[in-house]
């Protein structure tokens, strides 16, 4: 793809510079602040956009060539997967619930990332970061689409994902990932880059993306695994962009440090709360486990992240304070989350179950300080009750945290027997929080977080019933009306895995391949 330069031979760096920032100019017919109107309100000071170091140097010709090659391979695998009933290769049908969680919770975020990077890639006055952001915007629509295309085949055979776009905008627990990305894209362009580019893509990606992809690999899901690996070389570019953004901002002006530090603190915590879903996926939903949530946190955050923050210390950045609380929660997070979904299985688009004896033994071994003491008895009790025909479904709606929107199910740091509640009075109203960190995030920007569309509040206000519903008629079943609003088919999309249509179909279909019927 490289040209031979007829005249003076340009080095790679110079060549890339004439291919990108050399195209830019300082406008004179319109004012800079009119062309780039969002550059000052966050308080970040940039003196010289030319100091930006391009994190990667990819001209469009090379981009098209590499990416097309990857797409060709990926779609060949997906086609083969579809033709050969690849879905029947997964460890067992419980695994497919991971796919449902992924496509309804995560894939729509890839789309928001696409739009968010288009916005950032338009707004920065520096040509270098603009090009890098736009390339990421293009990658992100790839991720959103390849995920939908990969999952499309599962949707043909299994329940729970048939209307995932609709669900993402409405379902109670999906407001957790949705509000996270809404929060990022509604922030200013610099905060967006710190939240998504750095905190999410750089610090937390190994805890989000990698567990799903390795989970897929361990559980025989070729489709998901292939798009995951195919996306990895994009991710490598995104990570270098995230890191360059932080370094660039911090090197530009010392006044930027406290702003950036606050963003890193906020987004590490926001991101971690979203990872609650991943934690329970790793510990409970993968029939064949890759590693425990706790191990993943220790390796990817405490060790790798620790090294990163040591490296950033030269800029004055310190490890986010919330890391201390996260360390206290790591023995509890996944168990509390799975318990919550077990409770609310009537209102989720995936199935839950009590772990079997072997899985409980695995949990005891991975969580020697907490599982047997706090969580095993609870799950054994549920199992007993279910055996007697009393599978427990909680039909009372939980209070949600105003910031992270997770039901208030987390316990006090250091005391796993006591639910943690925090509250703030703001303009005549009381707001509730799951933690000091969510409370602090609210207090810094109350006007933003009072806007949150909290699913439970909305249900109680009557905003989550299908149009034309009359809640005053006799025998009105609010849960059924909410499920209608979600487009869930009660009895197929929700409830326990045991006895589900997915379970029956998977067994029957696999039986056709392995037995002579």
């Amino acid at each position, binding site marked *: 793809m490289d040209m031979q330069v007829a005249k003076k031979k340009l080095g790679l760096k110079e060549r890339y510079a004439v291919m990108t920032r050399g195209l830019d100019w300082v406008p004179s*017919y319109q004012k800079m602040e009119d062309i780039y109107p969002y550059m000052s309100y966050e308080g970040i000071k940039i003196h010289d956009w030319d100091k930006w170091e391009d994190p990667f140097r990819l001209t*469009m010709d090379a981009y098209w060539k590499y990416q097309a*090659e990857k797409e060709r391979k990926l779609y060949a695998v997906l086609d083969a997967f579809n033709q050969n009933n690849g879905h*029947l*290769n997964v460890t067992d049908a419980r695994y497919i619930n991971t796919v449902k969680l992924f496509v309804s919770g995560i894939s729509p975020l890839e789309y928001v990332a696409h739009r968010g990077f288009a916005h950032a890639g338009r707004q920065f006055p520096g040509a270098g970061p603009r090009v890098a952001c736009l390339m990421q915007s*293009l990658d992100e629509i790839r991720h959103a689409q390849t995920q939908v295309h990969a999952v499309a085949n599962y949707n043909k055979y299994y329940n729970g994902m048939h209307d*995932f776009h609709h669900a993402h905008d409405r379902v109670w627990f999906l407001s957790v990932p949705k509000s996270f990305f*809404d929060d990022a894209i509604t922030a200013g362009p610099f905060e967006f880059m710190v939240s998504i580019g750095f905190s999410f893509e750089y610090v937390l990606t190994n805890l989000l993306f990698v567990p799903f992809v390795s989970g897929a690999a361990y559980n025989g899901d070729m489709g998901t695994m292939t798009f995951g690996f195919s996306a990895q070389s994009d991710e490598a570019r995104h990570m270098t962009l995230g890191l360059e953004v932080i370094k660039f901002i911090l090197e530009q002006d010392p006044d930027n440090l406290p702003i950036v530090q606050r963003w890193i603190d906020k987004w590490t915590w926001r991101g971690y709360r979203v990872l609650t879903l991943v934690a329970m996926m790793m510990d409970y939903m993968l029939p064949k486990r890759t590693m425990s949530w706790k191990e993943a946190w220790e390796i990817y955050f405490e060790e790798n992240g620790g090294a990163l923050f040591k490296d950033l210390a030269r800029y004055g950045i310190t490890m986010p304070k919330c890391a201390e609380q996260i360390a206290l929660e790591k023995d509890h997070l996944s168990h509390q989350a799975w318990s919550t979904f077990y409770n609310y299985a009537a209102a989720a688009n995936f199935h839950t179950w009590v772990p079997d004896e072997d899985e409980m033994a695995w949990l005891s071994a991975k969580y020697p300080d907490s599982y047997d003491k706090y969580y095993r008895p609870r799950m054994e009790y549920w199992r007993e009750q279910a055996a007697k025909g009393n599978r427990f479904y909680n039909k009372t709606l939980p209070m949600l945290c105003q910031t992270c929107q997770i039901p208030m199910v987390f316990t006090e740091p250091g005391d796993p027997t006591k639910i943690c509640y925090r509250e703030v009075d703001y303009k005549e109203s009381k707001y509730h929080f799951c933690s000091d960190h969510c409370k602090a995030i609210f207090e810094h920007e109350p006007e933003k977080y009072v806007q949150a569309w909290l699913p439970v509040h909305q249900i109680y206000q009557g905003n989550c019933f299908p149009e034309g519903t009359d809640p005053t008629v006799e025998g009105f079943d609010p849960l059924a009306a909410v499920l209608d609003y979600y487009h869930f088919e009660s009895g197929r999309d929700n409830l326990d895995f045991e006895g589900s249509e997915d379970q029956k179909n998977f067994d029957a279909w*696999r039986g056709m391949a392995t037995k002579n019927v």
Partner: protein
Amino acid sequence: MHIDLRTVTIKPLRHTFDNIARRLGADKPATRYQEGTLDMQQTANFHYRPTWDPDHQIYDASRTAIKMADWYAFKDPRQFYYGAYTMARAKQQDTAEANFDFVENRNLADTLPADVRATVLELLVPLRHVAWGSNMNNASICAYSYGTAFSQPGIYQAMDQLGIAQYLTRVGLLLGGVESLEVAKTSWMEGDAWQGLRRYVEDCMVIKDPVELFVAQNVALDGLLYPLVYETIVDDVLSAKGGTPVAMLTQFMTDWFTETKRWTDATMKTAAAESDENKAILAKWVIQWRDRAAAALLPVARIALNERTDALVAEVVQQFDARLIKSGVPL
């Protein structure tokens, strides 16, 4: 244990996602374009308003004066989702690469008549800045328009224009070395011939209405610039003077315009067909930006066309009008 799953024939529970089935009117297999496009953008229950634009939702159809009952009425006739898009461009890139190789290996650049070379350096190389402006404007279209059917081609167009800016940069490097880029930039910033066009591009950068920006950039400016520069000047005028190698170096742009024009035409057609109000707004924008673009392109075209400029520009405008009228825009 290896299980041969291919032997199993099972009846699927459904053929596509519900949102697609609702739009297709039946549960039937959907294309990858449909599954990758329809309803991809979130539409309901946004949590916060943008701190950078509190008057609007994150995605907000009211950012434009154009009104659509359904923003998924727009369809990209190329059916570009990311995979189809990159594969199409990679193929064109192969051709472009072969063309550059052909010109370079045979030293065809050195055989160009001096006046053709001068015209290319004076006319084509500053256009890399115009393409760069289009990259920014299409980033805006992608970021602030409503519905993936409309916004998605915006990012492809943005990156195409970056690619075009880079091809033009290579043309400059090949024919005039790195100095030619500096000379072209000076013309762009200060040369009389270029100031109307630069003003046009900068004025586009402050348009807030994404559909108006689409009209100003993709319909009006590119709709005149590409036929004028690549079809008329490069393919006809310069080729007749021994400049065929130049046409090889810009084949990507010629092919690209032929292709993308199908999308811009389809988009205008859908928006105009929606209502008389839309027709009137589109016509107003088209006329206003067409007239400005034509005026801005005149002195630029004169670099190559001399006394034939007015006639040829008028011809291009006429063809442009015919195109738009065919799309249902009353001019």
